[in-house]
């Protein structure tokens, strides 16, 4: 009871209110494509929040985060394809996917997080490349680049159920991560981001914290991969592509790093922009090359909103002048 009372802060009430509105939204939507698009936003928001744990809270740049998304998607898809497509099988598959992601992120973390952040970024890129090549070449298991479709439990075939499941997962993961980042553990993560050697000389073994947060981020990303696979009922090697990591990086930066809410907004904006721009492909060929437009948006955001949307709003509300913020960015 005490925990519930403590959690009922003003901001939590607002978030729960928005979640309640989103929960009843499917009953007013007519088009399935819109519902599907919003489901995708929920899934990518979970993925982006996992990236925010690394980039926003701990200052770890990963170019291979898609690896965990792909692990989640492929592991569950292979289970669903080879075993009975019932809820028990799905739970087992999710358990294996999450455990596999945790082991991989632990191994990658322990091997690379001792290094400076740019080395970590390059090594994660290499590891993700390794998984992509393995998925393409191990055709017996993954069917290569063609991918495969599979059966999922009957109840999840309904797009409204999938929408609600994704939303509930998003809300639970959001509050879980919020609790984590507001805990003493979260404060140490921010301290590491700001000054690693200072944090170490306060008595913290920085590597342990970095490995632990990379495992949590890997597990959450793999869970997003599971939901993605369930929503599509199809998987191919594109889930391991660097584009997926770049998308999630953009979602996090545009929304606002180190905020958790920012990546959700970033995911919504990127997914909506993707959907809208793809629809304009008939108007002009440039809209087929949406990555060019993303690049432009990214440059503009970095120049005009260096803290992202949520970060800039928070800075304004807390009374910090733009010059202070920019000065701090420049110094870092």
């Amino acid at each position: 009871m005490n925990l519930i009372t403590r959690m009922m802060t003003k901001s939590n009430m607002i978030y729960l209110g928005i979640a309640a509105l989103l929960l009843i939204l499917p009953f007013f939507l007519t088009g399935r494509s819109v519902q599907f698009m919003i489901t995708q936003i929920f899934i990518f928001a979970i993925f982006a929040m996992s990236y925010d744990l690394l980039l926003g809270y701990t200052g770890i740049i990963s170019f291979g985060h898609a690896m965990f998304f792909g692990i989640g998607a492929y592991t569950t898809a292979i289970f669903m394809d080879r075993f009975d497509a019932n809820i028990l099988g799905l739970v087992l598959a999710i358990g294996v996917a999450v455990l596999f992601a945790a082991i991989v992120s632990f191994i990658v973390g322990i091997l690379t997080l001792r290094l400076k952040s740019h080395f970590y970024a390059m090594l994660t890129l290499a590891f993700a490349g390794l998984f992509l090549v393995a998925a393409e070449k191990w055709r017996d298991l993954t069917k290569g680049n063609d991918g495969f479709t599979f059966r999922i439990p009957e109840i999840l075939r309904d797009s409204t159920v999938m929408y609600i499941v994704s939303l509930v997962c998003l809300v639970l993961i959001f509050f879980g991560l919020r609790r984590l980042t507001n805990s003493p553990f979260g404060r140490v993560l921010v301290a590491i981001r700001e000054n690693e050697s200072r944090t170490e000389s306060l008595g913290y073994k920085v590597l342990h914290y970095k490995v632990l947060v990379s495992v949590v981020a890997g597990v959450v990303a793999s869970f997003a991969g599971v939901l993605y696979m369930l929503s599509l009922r199809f998987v191919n090697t594109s889930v391991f592509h660097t584009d997926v990591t770049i998308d999630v990086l953009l979602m996090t930066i545009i929304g606002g790093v180190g905020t958790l809410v920012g990546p959700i907004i970033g995911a919504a904006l990127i997914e909506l922009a993707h959907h809208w721009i793809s629809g304009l492909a008939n108007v002009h060929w440039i809209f087929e090359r949406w990555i060019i437009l993303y690049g432009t948006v990214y440059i503009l955001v970095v120049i005009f909103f260096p803290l992202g949307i949520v970060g800039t709003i928070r800075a304004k509300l807390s009374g910090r002048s733009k010059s202070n913020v920019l000065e701090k960015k420049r110094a870092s």
Partner: protein
Amino acid sequence: MNNLLKVSKVKANIQQFHILHDINFEVPIGEVTVLLGRNGAGKTTTLRTIMGLNPVHNGSILFKDEEIANLKPHLIANKGIGYVPEDQGIFEDLTVGENLRVAMKREDQETTERLDWILDLFPDLKKFWKKPGGQLSGGQKQMLAIARAYVNENDLLLIDEPSKGLAPIVVEKVMETILQMKEKTTILLVEQNFHMASKIGDRFYIIDDGQTVHNGLMEDLRQDKVLMKKYLGVS
């Protein structure tokens, strides 16, 4: 064991540069030992080397008779050494309260009492408890840095140039605080401000070009105008 810390024949490099050639000194329990010297003499590097932030190339660092040279910084910190770096090292996105909490190894009654004591000395920290560290003034940041090192029951505090860049009135406040802390803990202080160093310190070591060249009691140094002029540029 009269000496809490004993540094013997320490050599240390920063990348390819030889910074410390032959550092020797001892820090007796319950005293304030001051490292003096001109800019670039190697005082800050000495503190960083003790703290494990620079590797020791040669020599020995004994803390409570235990070798700590080349241990990882977190292990050294957990043995009971607190460090206030020259740049204060405040976590700018954390609030004052969070900066202090992140430094606290325990949240027991003793730590709370130490926190209350230091907050009474620095009421500004209480006032700006929820303000991000990055929004504090230079003096307030210094107070926070000292409070953060003091909040745990450390046997030894390494304090690097606490008066640097501060207004004289703030320097006085910081000095008063260190004088009060002196009653409760052993301090190794690096300080360029001779007025402050001479008021706080019990004994001194002069570092010149990476070597300890002179040492003695602070009250003797105050009388030795020649030595002060030669190594510290104070007349």
